């Protein structure tokens, strides 16, 4: 079964999908998040990702274990890239396998939702106006602090 990784090189999403496959799986879902050039009228030239790596790994492992338990997954792998990610390149890949498709789709979506709220990784957007770190107003405090 695939694990969790933080990498500084391009992500091989196909290999991640192959790593979660197995005889118990009847459904395999691969999600990749890629660097988007246009957000409304704003242009992005590239993204730059930074992590607090020890806690990011711990949180990704926790999410992987919770998803495996909650959705009955037979395989689950998460890779997040760090450093500079060009337009069209993959910044995050999540692959899950389950006996049936509903659990697999639901688990992949749940993992992305949680990753975006809980895991200490930040992006910096480079565009015509310069570079800016993204700290969403709507996100609330990470870690689920009451």
């Amino acid at each position: 079964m695939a694990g969790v990784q933080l990498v500084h090189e391009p992500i091989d999403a196909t290999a991640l999908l192959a790593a979660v496959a197995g005889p118990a799986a009847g459904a395999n879902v691969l999600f990749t998040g890629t660097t988007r050039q246009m957000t409304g009228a704003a242009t992005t030239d590239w993204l730059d990702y930074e992590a607090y790596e020890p806690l990011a790994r711990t949180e990704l492992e926790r999410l992987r274990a919770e998803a495996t338990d909650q959705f009955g997954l037979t395989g689950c792998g998460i890779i997040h890239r760090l450093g500079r990610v060009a337009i069209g390149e993959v910044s995050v890949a999540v692959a899950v396998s389950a006996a049936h498709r509903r659990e697999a789709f639901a688990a992949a979506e749940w993992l992305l939702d949680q990753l975006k709220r809980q895991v200490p990784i930040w992006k910096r957007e480079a565009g015509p106006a310069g570079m800016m770190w993204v700290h969403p107003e709507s996100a609330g405090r990470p870690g689920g602090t009451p």
Partner: protein
Amino acid sequence: MKRPDKQQSGGDARPLPVQVHLFAGMAAAAGQRQLELQPTVATVAGVRAALAAAAPGIAQLLARSAVAVGGRYATDETPVGPDDEIAIIPPVSGG
């Protein structure tokens, strides 16, 4: 059990130097990735207060940030010591 003389009494209440790690927009705003603080209360709340005083420019972002101690998300009541790795976690934007 108030101890008005805690500044002189020694023990846990004495100000301790702690190292705090900053990331992303918070490191950019503070102009440094790590700084030493002397919180007057040896808890995460004490670290928050000391950091806001030392770097007023990041106070607003700090209020929206979590704090991790020893590689785990902590609460304001979590105790801190000089050997703990303390990290400020501003709102995340991975994915």
